[in-house]
């Protein structure tokens, strides 16, 4: 990946812009905060592998978010980092990794309490469910956190989790937009989520589609398949 910007079709860049803007409005309606890095969103599309691909990288810092399970004096901070790649000139989505770090904030200290990422690679990865969530103990690099305006003192866990290596949970297509969608549903309440869902409905068709033909074909096939085998359809386990 280089820093050289690549110009996406307006349909693609405006879909990302509109989605993130709708997210920002939902966040403001909920009276919480999202901090964007100073780089304009359109310049986050960069050259990747010559003129056959492009990359998108964006980090968001969700500041002082509510969490029902936390006592009143504690708040949640969430950092989301998206890394997506596209095929050119089709601008279909060929890879998406979205990292989330959840921090419990006490005063000026942020303790990492949950780390995970959602993954997808067109064509699939060996022994990985096609779309999956992986629970990890990996923090998003501190430089990325700071670049979003993350201004808290970091407290990382003393002991690594023991299950993160093998825990890959199959998911629907959780790309950057889907993750933001679920974050709104998880944290901002039904009313705001409903408005947000309505607002972004028209944007969906403009977002680049992930390439997952094998999975689609598998899902269309009959019930002789084992319940979850379609998650590994790219490995030709079912026909």
């Amino acid at each position, binding site marked *: 990946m280089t820093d*050289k910007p690549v110009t996406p079709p307006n349909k693609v*860049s405006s879909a990302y812009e509109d989605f993130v803007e709708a997210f920002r409005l939902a966040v403001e309606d909920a009276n919480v905060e999202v901090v964007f890095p100073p780089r304009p969103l359109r310049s986050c599309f960069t050259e990747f592998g010559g003129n056959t691909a492009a990359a998108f990288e964006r980090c968001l810092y969700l500041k002082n978010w509510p969490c029902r399970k936390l006592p009143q004096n504690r708040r949640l901070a969430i950092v989301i980092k998206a890394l997506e790649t596209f095929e050119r000139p089709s601008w279909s989505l060929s890879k998406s990794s979205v990292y989330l770090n959840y921090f419990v904030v006490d005063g000026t200290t942020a303790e990492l309490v949950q780390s995970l990422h959602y993954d997808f690679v067109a064509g699939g990865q060996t022994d990985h469910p096609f779309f999956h969530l992986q629970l990890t103990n990996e923090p998003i690099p501190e430089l990325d956190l700071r670049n979003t305006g993350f201004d808290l003192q970091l407290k990382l866990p003393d002991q690594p989790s023991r299950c993160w290596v093998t825990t890959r949970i199959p998911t629907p297509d959780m790309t950057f937009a889907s993750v933001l969608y679920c974050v709104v549903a998880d944290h901002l309440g039904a009313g705001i989520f409903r408005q947000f869902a309505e607002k972004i409905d028209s944007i969906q068709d403009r977002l680049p589609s992930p390439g997952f033909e094998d999975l689609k074909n598998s899902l269309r096939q009959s019930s002789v398949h084992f319940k979850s085998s379609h998650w590994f359809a790219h490995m030709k386990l079912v026909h």
Partner: protein
Amino acid sequence: MTNAIKIVLFEDTQQTRSDVLQSLTTHTRPDGNVVPFEGARFTESPSERERMYEARLEQILSKPPYDGATLIVADRDLSKSLDSNFVGLSVNAVAAAAQKLSIPICSYARQPELDDYEWRGRWEEGHIVLSFSEGEAELARRAALAARGFAEIGRQLPQIIADKSNKSPARVLAALLGKPEYADKVALYGVGDQNRISEVLAKGKDTAQQVQRMTHFLGYWLWDSLLRYPGILVNEVAAASHLNIDTEAFHAANVQTIFQEALYHGPFADPSRPQWWRGMLDDIVSGDNCADGLELVHAKVNSAIERSKCCVDPSKSAGYYCIISRKPVSLENSKGGISWFPRGADLTRVSNPMFEEYGPWLGA
């Protein structure tokens, strides 16, 4: 389709009035009408004459020969007015009357205070400030352009507001520009000018009044915001910078031809100061699977065309536009997201040296 326009001119110096009037008449042909304001022509009762200038002007401007004006053009300094009915008239009184009647107003200064007036021309909200520095012919050309733009908006509006799907001002403006799909982007140019809220909310007593108010509001919004701050639309320097093409090279006819399809032709489009739809420029570039405009013109025009250069550090490509110096600037050497920038103006920046110089006044 042309739109008949009527301009009312407020100018207190005889010679300048004659010069500006002549130029305006030339530039408003064949469908225009320019009427110099002469307060002395009106007979008012003593009680009427005791009222404030603003109220008196409002009444006079509602009557022939000034009624139905598309635009008022006024000298900034009317203090030398020898009109016995309006001694010491100020442009503020004219502007206040114009505001009440929803007539747009342009002002100019005959003896500009150079940078100061230039600056005000670019920053003053809800009041189009034109420069006199290029002479009365250019002033008149720009004023006629402004009048035609407002007239065009007024002509299209009844049909657009009749469509109930155009609920918000952003939707109305996007429809007016022929880009309904850009409504969300246009909404990001809401500048929060509280003086205009009444115009946004006003339904008017009748459709004609509503159209007049909306024309006033949308015209200023378009002129002052969308056409001023590069983002959804880009001027020549900003377009070249965004495309990563050297500003001079971008002027070349064979380069311009490539991007011609993206030219803005809506209200206030000025052939001498063209603007482009940024999204359409992007589509032209990505349609040929090029990373940027430079790659495209290298392939299609001339591989010797140079990249854009940041005005602070020419070793870097630009990409953005410094709204103060009006030069191309790089992301690294500029500040964006300044509180008074419209949110949609993501190509608008202030170069670091300018920001350091004017920072306290520019805000954060």
